C-alpha cells in the first residue's frame, strides 16, 4: 500500500487542522482503546488507565508527537520511525493486531471532534496513514 500525493496532502492538511489538540486526541484514543478493547491494557499493567489519568495523558502526547513527526516525513516513514520501529520490535513487542485497534480508535476520535473535516476521502487517507505507520512499527519484528 502506497500513499499517493493526494493522500499525503489530505494527511498533512488534516493533521494541521488538529493543531494543538493532537496530544489530547492521542490520550482520548488510548482511553477509548483501553475501554473498548480491554486486552490492550495488558501492555500497561503499570498504568492507571482510569478516565483522566495523568499517565494516559502523558502517553497520549507521546504517541501524538510521534505521529506528528511521521506526518512531517511522509516520504520516508521507515527512516523517520526507525528508532520507534526498533523499540517496538525488541523491547515493547506489542502484538501487531493491537496497532489496528489503536488506529481505529484514532479514527473514531478524529471523526468525533472534526466531523466536517473528516470527509470520506480524508478518512481513507488517514486510514492508510495509520496502516502505513503500523506496518513500519512492526517491520522489524522478525
Amino acid at each position, binding site marked *: 500500500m502506497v500513499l499517493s500525493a493526494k493522500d499525503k496532502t489530505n494527511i498533512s492538511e488534516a493533521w494541521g487542522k488538529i493543531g494543538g489538540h493532537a496530544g489530547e486526541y492521542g490520550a482520548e484514543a488510548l*482511553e*477509548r482503546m483501553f*475501554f*473498548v478493547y480491554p486486552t490492550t491494557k495488558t501492555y500497561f499493567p503499570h498504568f492507571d488507565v482510569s478516565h483522566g489519568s495523568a499517565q494516559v495523558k502523558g502517553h497520549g502526547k507521546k504517541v501524538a508527537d510521534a505521529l506528528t513527526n511521521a506526518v512531517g516525513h511522509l516520504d520516508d516513514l521507515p527512516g523517520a520511525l526507525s528508532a520507534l520501529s526498533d523499540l517496538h520490535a525488541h523491547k515493547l513487542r506489542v502484538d501487531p493486531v493491537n496497532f489496528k485497534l489503536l488506529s*481505529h480508535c484514532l*479514527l*473514531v*476520535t478524529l*471523526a*468525533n471532534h472534526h*466531523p466536517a473535516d*473528516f*470527509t*470520506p*476521502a480524508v*478518512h*481513507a487517507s488517514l*486510514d492508510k496513514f495509520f496502516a502505513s505507520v503500523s506496518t513500519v512499527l512492526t517491520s522489524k519484528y522478525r
Partner: protein
Amino acid sequence: MVNFTAEEKGLINGLWSKVNVEDIGGEALGRLLVVYPWTQRFFDSFGNLSSASAIMGNPRVKAHGKKVLTSFGEAIKNLDNLKSALAKLSELHCDKLHVDPENFKLLGNVLVIVLAGHFGKEFTPEMQAAWQKLVVGVATALSHKYH
C-alpha cells in the same frame, strides 16, 4: 454467544432512536466503498463508483446503505437472539451473495466511525464499547450459517 447488559441495551437503543437510517446507512456504505475500494467488487451493477464524491452521491449506494442499516435495526430489536434473527440473512450472504465475512467487520467499524462523527459528545467510550459489541455480534451472527 454475546450478552448485552441492560446498560448496553439502553445505550444502543438510546442512540438508535436518533439515527436517520437513510443518512447513516448511506454514509456508512459509501465510506466502506471509498476507504476499502476492494469492497466495490460486490457492486459492479451500481454504476458510477469512480471517485469518493461519485460513490457518496450514488443513489444506489444510498438506497442499499439504507437497506443494510434497516436490517441492523431488526438486529437491535433482537439483541438476545442475534444468531436466529439473522439466520436467513447469513444464508443469503453465503449462498447467494458470496460475501467474505471479513467485510462485515469492515462495515461494522466504519459504522462506528460514522456514528462518532454524527453524535459528538454523546459518543462516549461507553457508547462506543456498546456499539463495537453490537457490530461484532452482528458480524458473528451473519457468519454463522457459512459453510
